[in-house]
């Protein structure tokens, strides 16, 4: 099975505290550490496992600038066979629909049996997988936490409310958006990264993809982010202060009053 996995470079929320910049209109991007979107990493792992069992290939693709190449290389170090960087000034400022349109053009350049995306990203809207499927006229399932490969189709589990799982049969080719927890992504060591450090990653722009530059990028976006902000919140929690002993004494008093100690 030939699988395409769409990945995205995002600020790493486990390495950074996301906060506003001094002007109060954007997040503070100084010293921000980026990594591959957590959901996408599970998608790549799942693709690798499918190919390990059923044969085939895994290609990772991203839309981004030159720096986005590092996430492709990281996923190739995990085991993906090929990387594809969709890079063009015309792509800047694309909304979800624009990104899906760019990815669609890349999908049509190849031949894939299965296309995976992460179910969402910390800075996203959980939209690209579903849009891409609709543009390609392929069946789609979101929040997938189980895949079993069958003949010409897949059995997929979706995470629904209350820890329940919705089982579906879906015909191939299809698009699936992957939920975290579907597997345990393998560790990528320095050696793995080194091995793929010099592998050439093809870059495709709007012209290569046969895309009308007017249909992507900021000008075509129907949804635009104006700014970031932190709203005035209510009073919030009463923060206990003092020495640890004082804090604990106060907390124990409160817990007793609220029925938290038996």
């Amino acid at each position, binding site marked *: 099975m030939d699988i395409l996995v769409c990945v995205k470079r995002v600020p790493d929320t486990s390495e950074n*505290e996301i906060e506003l910049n001094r002007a109060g209109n954007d997040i503070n991007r100084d010293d921000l550490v980026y990594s591959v979107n957590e959901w996408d990493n599970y998608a790549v792992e799942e693709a690798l496992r499918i190919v390990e069992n059923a044969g085939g290939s895994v290609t990772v693709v991203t839309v981004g600038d030159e720096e986005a190449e590092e996430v492709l290389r990281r996923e190739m170090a995990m085991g993906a066979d090929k990387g594809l960087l969709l890079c063009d000034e015309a792509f800047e400022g694309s909304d979800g629909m624009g990104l899906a349109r760019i990815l669609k053009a890349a999908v049509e350049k190849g031949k894939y049996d299965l296309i995976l995306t992460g179910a969402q990203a910390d800075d996203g809207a959980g939209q690209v997988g579903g849009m891409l499927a609709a543009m390609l006229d392929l069946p789609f399932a979101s929040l997938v936490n189980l895949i079993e490969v069958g003949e010409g189709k897949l059995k997929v589990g979706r995470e629904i409310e209350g820890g329940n799982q919705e089982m579906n049969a879906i015909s191939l080719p299809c698009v699936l958006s992957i939920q975290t927890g579907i597997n345990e992504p393998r560790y990528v060591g320095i050696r793995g990264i080194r091995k793929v450090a010099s592998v050439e990653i093809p870059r495709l722009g709007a012209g290569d993809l046969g895309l009308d530059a007017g249909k992507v990028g900021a000008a075509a976006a129907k949804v635009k982010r104006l700014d970031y902000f932190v709203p005035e919140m209510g009073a919030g929690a009463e923060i206990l202060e003092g020495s640890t002993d004082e804090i604990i004494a106060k907390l124990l008093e409160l817990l007793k009053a609220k029925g938290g100690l038996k």
Partner: protein
Amino acid sequence: MAQIFAYILHKNGVIDDTARELLAVARKIDASATPTALVLGAGSELASACAAAAGAYAQVWKVDNAALAYPNAEVVRKALVKLVPAGSIVLMAHEHFGMDLAPGLAIRMDAAFVSDLVDIEDLDGGLLKAVRQEFGGAVHSHVTVDLSTGAVITARPGSFQAKEEAAAGGQVADKSGAVEDLAGRRDFIEVVAAEVGDVDITKSEVLVSCGRGFEEQDNLAIAFELAKAMGADVSCSRPIVDAKWLEKARQVGTSGQTVKPKVYMACGISGSFQHMGGIKGNPFIVAINKNPKAPIFQVADVGIVADVLEFIPELTEKIKEGA
């Protein structure tokens, strides 16, 4: 102004709380709107859901089709594309079904898509200004949405206040004829119920809940020790289950269990809305987190800015001394 539709979630003939919240969303877009409820399903359960929807909406469109007995997003999308006029605005709740249905629907309708709105500010010349959250609620963002070719909008459950209104006495129009063959390429098989774990956290009165702040699996032992000293049970947030450190049955949140304890100790948990969505009954919430800006401090009753790995063993010790 474009016609506004609200997709109504229902189960066993009962409509979801979000049905009335979407009415509030529609009114925030256009105060004079008379939105139409879309109620799709099959048989007697559908009839009950339509009757309930007519209590809130003046107009209800009903689609009765055996293929819609279970809400399979691929099938529902096909039905909606045939049903909803071009240029309309379709509202739905941002939960697992909305996430499955909405993005592809926007493409099929050639409409704008915006997801997970927590507020709407204004509508100015066909441009809707709304509020979303990013990075797990650490920051909010304003977005504009061009409504000129219609829109599909998902709203976060619980973010828009449903108003107490007099019964709408709505008219139910049967639109089943507008959709016929709904066969798709994705077939619903079954719902597999969550496994029952060692403890039923939905019955716990006191919970010690662990999040990312525990850093390593071995560190969870201190949470179990605290729980033992308090007479509490241990629950957790999603990352702990994703890492397979604890079983799914201990996960609190919209994709896990809904708990209603008296006291909830959120230890090393940032407090995402998905997590908080699983906590009901207004418990006394204690947040322990080393990040003073963690969203959990906005919703907790009492906060302690400390590293759980250092603070919890000391707390456990003091409780044991007092016992």
